[in-house]
């Protein structure tokens, strides 16, 4: 049997609306993954350090405040610095289409906008981890 996929679900920025992050975390856990939820108000530094310590294959960032253009590039740059490019980063939240394109150019594997189905997110994470191995 494959070892469990390890996922860090993180909530960066000042926003406290954690409904989405918690629902996704539970869905990934119910799908058999090992999920670590960081809690609120994590800086990019805290997120990348937690990802390193927890040795995760996936980071899920939940951002609903419109601050994704300020936060995600910093997370991606820090992952590169620490040579953690193999970690799959997915973003969920209110990210407009053109911003989603830009985030993917920075190396984000997928952006899940409002209404995305949990099954699709779970399936994407599984296949992205398989492809990254």
């Amino acid at each position: 049997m494959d070892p469990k996929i390890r996922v860090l679900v993180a909530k960066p920025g000042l926003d406290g609306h954690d409904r989405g992050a918690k629902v996704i975390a539970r869905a990934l856990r119910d799908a058999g993954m090992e999920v670590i939820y960081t809690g609120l108000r994590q800086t990019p530094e805290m997120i990348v350090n937690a990802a390193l310590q927890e040795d995760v294959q996936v980071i899920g960032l939940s951002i609903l405040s419109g601050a994704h253009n300020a936060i995600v590039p910093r997370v991606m740059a820090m992952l590169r610095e620490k040579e953690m490019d193999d970690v799959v980063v997915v973003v969920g939240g209110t990210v407009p289409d053109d911003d989603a394109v830009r985030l993917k150019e920075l190396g984000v594997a997928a952006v899940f906008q409002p209404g995305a189905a949990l099954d699709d997110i779970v399936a994407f994470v599984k296949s992205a981890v398989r492809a990254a191995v």
Partner: protein
Amino acid sequence: MKRGASETAQPRTLSGIPLESHYGSPAPGEYPYTRGIHAAMYRAKLWTMRQFSGFATPEETNARYRYLLAQGQSGLSVAFDLPTLMGCDPDDAAALGEVGKCGVSIASLADMETLFDGIPLDKVSVSMTINSPAPVLFAMYLAVAEKQGVPFEKLNGTLQNDILKEYIAQKEFLYPPRPSMRLVTDVVEYATRHVPKYNPISISGYHIREAGSTAVQELAFTLRDGIEYVEWALERGLAVDEFAPRLSFFFNAHSDFFEEIAKYRAARRIWARFMRERFGAQDEKSWKLRFHTQTAGCSLTWQQPYNNVVRTALQALAGVMGGTQSLHTNSLDEAYALPSEQAVTLALRTQQIIAHESGVAAVADPLGGSHYVEALTDEVERQALEYIQRIDEMGGMIPAIERNFPQGEIAEASYQYQKRVESGEQVIVGVNRYTQDDEPKLEILKIDQAAEQSQVEKVAGLRARRDATRTDAALAALRAAAESHLNTMPLILNAVRAYATTGEICRTLGGVFGGWQERSVL
């Protein structure tokens, strides 16, 4: 209801049938107010149409407010950005990328002066959605009134100032629960003495529902929060009938039409009985639960966004048929961003159509006596009372929060709801049924990064310009008050007058009270 010359004193149906102000008994306006707090309801006074609004700089938001007032909106409701909500200045490292994004950035009295420039505070009622830093923003509002020459006794409006639902749901907290409750009570006491027509707290279920609760949980946790605030004010030495008439509530209007109406009816009945029987209030005004309603942001979909207009209209209708005192209707583009001017105008027109075309405002509690609605009201009440009793047994809302009880109940409810959406058991049109590939594209509001730069420069300029000795002395006096048992409000007002910033005042209080991290539960 304000009626034009063409509207007769006694409303009629379109066929000319004259209408009574209510049907059946007991009449609305009678204890325990299940049917509404006024006998004549919207005939006497229409609900206040109050659209929550704020973005970017104070200058831009001031322009939006003037536009909304010109379109017939009857009150203002200020949305602050996340740095302001979290007590950070625009140049704080934590504020990077968030200034002006979710609301307007207000870093000092200077920003508040700009926000209300040309808006007379004795004529326009203003609601402010702010919680942990509520005393600071309330003080800035009072200081602007002083500058406009408006006495505090003439100020109308509402401060959200509801910290308990932050620990439960929205998570915008700065300090531990007990010092936060002390600040809430400082504001309640100060307003009771000096700003008597102002609502110093808006006990809010809205955010609890948005976090994924059921209607019953929204009702139960909100009313139990209300009990907590009453107990703290009594502990402070206020008499119940001094402050209870100015407690206000804020509920969500979600998509289950009849359950929402039952929720509002049950809310009034439970609160009236608590105030009279549990707290011994004598004044009828203390028994009457007044509430604001906002349609459910979490029900808005990204897919087929024009469907959101219809969802919002139905939810707003539930709020009106449930007897709301004021209403915010969401805009169709709010799953994407803050609303465009065109979208917010359509949302306001939705209320105006319900008010003036649909006829539902003519008769109070039009569903009262319906077997279905009465039974549902009773059942929602019964289940909410069960929750309230459980929280009483835990020793009140603060111990309940500390053991993650409401947070856990909400997380479970939201996950179960999402699973029903995923399975298709809960239909969401355009999302899990009747989907289409060619989605219409919306023109959405984008907040220019220039707003952040402008606010950063402004706050730096202010710090260089102000009388630093005066500001420092005011902050030191505030710190001393926070360490004592004095009411902090007069000291916060002095600090604001000396142009201390939102961040400086909140950090001063944090230096005394400490911070708060929640224990996250999945």
